[in-house]
């Protein structure tokens, strides 16, 4: 293949990464924006979503779509409920102090990870996609008789990958509608902009916090259910999404949802493209250094407006 088809392939793979990353990162960004809590255990909520999806797909017999469909609804709810419980038993008692919550969520990370290791084991396990038609992509090449359409070997995608992108876009629109158009979104934004004042106006801030923490974790779990037919479920799979979500949230500006989505698309696409041409380790080194330097020299993020 020439460079062109490679680039198309990398962009498609990158778009799938970007879609899943956007969901995960929006969850992290929501928690940070409203609660001012840096949730180190976010990647583990992602991993839990994937593991629950495997358990459901494995436990329910019949067409793969049945188990997957159930997982799509159940996994985010279960993970969200767990997160709400963690918020009410641990984070609330720390008064959401930024430094102590970081230490506590590191502890939570280890607890979730190791409990999964004990219950689920160290193997990576696949989940069948509900539908998986291969779609070849045509390419135009100038041959002896002028331009003609060819079907290069290996250039193609699956219907499932396209569905992942569409689903992510739909969920992101729903989150936007929730935040911008609904009453509960209004309450969340009020809490975000001034906690004391929200409390004075009778908003149950602690319940809002629990809800936001659960919503953030649920989004991560949903992203994981979507990606698990492409990757595999593994108890250590939370590390990469966590790191990349941090990258995205910081570059997009801490707590800014539109910035987060733009940064996710940017990082997902460039990660896909860089990984095709260079070593994935080098891509990660560049991404982590970029985050560090952005935080040092532009703490409001590349797209943020106010100082952080």
């Amino acid at each position: 293949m020439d460079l062109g088809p490679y680039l198309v392939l990398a962009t498609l793979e990158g778009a799938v990464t970007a879609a899943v990353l956007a969901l995960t990162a929006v969850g992290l960004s929501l928690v940070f924006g409203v609660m001012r809590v840096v949730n180190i255990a976010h990647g583990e909520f992602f991993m839990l979503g994937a593991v629950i999806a495997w358990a459901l797909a494995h436990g329910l017999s019949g067409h793969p779509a049945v188990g997957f469909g159930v997982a799509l609804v159940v996994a985010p709810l279960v993970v969200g409920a767990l997160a709400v419980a963690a918020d009410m038993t641990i984070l609330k008692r720390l008064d959401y102090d930024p430094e102590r919550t970081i230490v506590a969520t590191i502890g939570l990370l280890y607890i979730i990870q190791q409990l999964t290791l004990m219950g689920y084991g160290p193997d990576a396990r696949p989940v069948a996609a509900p539908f998986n038609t291969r779609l070849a992509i045509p390419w135009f090449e100038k041959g002896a008789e002028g331009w003609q359409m060819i079907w290069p070997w290996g250039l193609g995608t699956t219907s499932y990958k396209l569905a992942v992108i569409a689903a992510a876009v739909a969920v992101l629109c729903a989150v936007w509608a929730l935040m911008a158009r609904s009453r509960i979104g209004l309450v969340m934004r009020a809490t975000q902009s001034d906690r004391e004042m929200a409390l004075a106006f009778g908003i149950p801030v602690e319940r809002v916090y629990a809800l936001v923490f659960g919503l953030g974790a649920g989004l991560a779990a949903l992203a994981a259910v979507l990606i698990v037919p492409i990757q595999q479920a593994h108890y250590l799979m939370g590390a990469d999404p966590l790191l990349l979500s941090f990258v995205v949230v910081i570059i997009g500006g801490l707590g800014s949802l539109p910035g987060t989505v733009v940064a996710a698309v940017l990082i997902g696409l460039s990660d896909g493209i860089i990984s095709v041409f260079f070593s994935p380790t080098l891509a990660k080194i560049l991404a982590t250094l970029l985050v560090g330097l952005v935080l040092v020299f532009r703490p409001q993020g590349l797209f943020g407006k106010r100082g952080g």
Partner: protein
Amino acid sequence: MRVYALHAGLIVLLFALHFLLPAYHHGNLARVMVLASYAIGYNILFGYTGLLSLGHALFFAAGLYGMGLGIQHLGLAPAPAFLLGLVAGAVVSGGLALLALRTSGVAFMIVTLMFAQAGYLTLLYFGTYTRGDEGFVIAQASRALWGIDLSDPGNRYLAALILFGTCLLLSLWLVRTPFGRVLVAIRENEERVRMLGYDTFAHKLAAMVISGTIAAAAGAGYGLLFGYAGATFASVQYSIFPLLWVLLGGAGTVLGPFVGTLFMFYLIDLSSGITTAYMLIAGVVLVALTLFAPQGLMGEVRRRLWKGLP
């Protein structure tokens, strides 16, 4: 006076244990002392200056690899290699400090975390020299310091004791100097210290370099004494361990890092007999600590028994 007696007493006790302990615990204690030196370094930045770093594994690894690569690829003798490790730690911590200290609070934690992660990935990327995750063994022949074979358990214990004792007394002396007092004041209220005319940036920079260099000394010592260097020592886990040890033992106490390391080491040692998922216990301890004893073990001692404990 009582303060010096207490700390000298600990070192004498550890020296006496050299002759008393059975081989298994003797080996464990040597390891605990080296790791406690790492925690002492961490405590100077976190406990006394109030800066929570999530990237100290970078400094530990700088010492470990500065020493290890010096022996492996430059053919250095152990003493200059150890020095090279210290210099590497000082340079890396100084460089990171210049960048990271422009930020504060949560941003400081994430910046240190990100640079440490980049350092870890760099170690993996240059796998031809560092052998990545697999690591490399430092040959027994090149671990003889002035004719003393450091791979011998007896010599190893005493060398670890010397390293630990030096770090302990250094940190005790440091926090009682005017410089150390300013660090504590920065932890309590940085604005006020700046108003009083102190250059807080210079003090924080110095604290981070001292902290990083002690961590590097522990890393280089670990490599020399136990003969192994691997990229795992640069991973996030090894940045979180000293935080855990210091929190457990008591942040901002001189003895805390040692108490915390000892406690955690035996907690994991005993629990790994029961389950392979021993990190679960680390997680539960972390959560329980932030909830119930934010002062740590020695912090509770200071609060209840002895107010003047340094």
